[in-house]
């Protein structure tokens, strides 16, 4: 795989599920200097505040969402002492317990990996044009979250 292709795999919005082992290996394979890999995996919960949720649907703005995820990766690589960053978000219908979002950060030192990983998921929620619709007993609702 060329460098450009390998980099493209590090930022994706996709419908399909993903293997965490495979995604971690993309990061691990970038450097033998990596000693710690911090990962955040967001999964679909069956409750949202006081409502039961049976399923969810994610919609995204094609082009702009990928642009924002690339920005997040670039800024994490620049602002933290880390070696590689992977950012991946699914769209479409997602069942309870399934994977939604994955951040993987490889660094020499674990404290940097944790800091960058946490920053990426916090930032993703702030700036990425992705929207969630929850399927509840009262019907389907678009969710608006206020931190």
């Amino acid at each position, binding site marked *: 795989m060329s460098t450009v292709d390998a980099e493209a795999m590090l930022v994706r919005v996709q419908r399909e599920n993903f293997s965490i082992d495979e995604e971690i290996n993309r990061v691990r394979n970038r450097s033998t200097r990596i000693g710690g890999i911090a990962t955040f995996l*967001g*999964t*679909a*919960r069956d409750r*949202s*505040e006081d409502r039961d949720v049976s399923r969810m649907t*994610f*919609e*995204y*703005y094609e*082009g*702009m*969402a990928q*642009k924002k995820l690339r920005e997040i990766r670039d800024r994490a690589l620049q602002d933290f002492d880390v070696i590689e960053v992977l950012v991946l*978000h699914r769209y479409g219908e997602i069942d309870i317990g399934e994977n*939604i*979002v994955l951040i993987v950060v490889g660094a020499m030192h674990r404290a940097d990996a944790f800091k960058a990983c946490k920053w990426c*998921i916090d930032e*993703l*929620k*702030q*700036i*990425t*044009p*992705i*929207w*969630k*619709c929850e399927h509840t007993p009262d*019907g*389907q*609702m*678009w*969710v*608006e*979250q*206020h*931190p």
Partner: protein
Amino acid sequence: MTVTVKLFGMLKTQLHHESELTVRLDQGCKVDDLIAAIQSMNPDVGDLLLKRKILVSVNHHIAHGETELTSADEIALLPPFSGGSCTSGERTSYVYR
């Protein structure tokens, strides 16, 4: 000129279940003029735009009111983002799909 405005998430529900909106504007119009035009079509959505709860993007950048528009621009209305997983103690508000 005519501009096409992409709609996402709850906005599709609020604006007649369409995924795009076509708006006629004068040549040299700005984002503020687009917001005024939407305000007259749907005051609720217009208010959220004025409060910047809904953002306007132009060519994948978040735009401010003074940004000038052309018919070649890719324009979108962005309701509050809710990507990631539901992992913080957020207040949530709902709009039926």
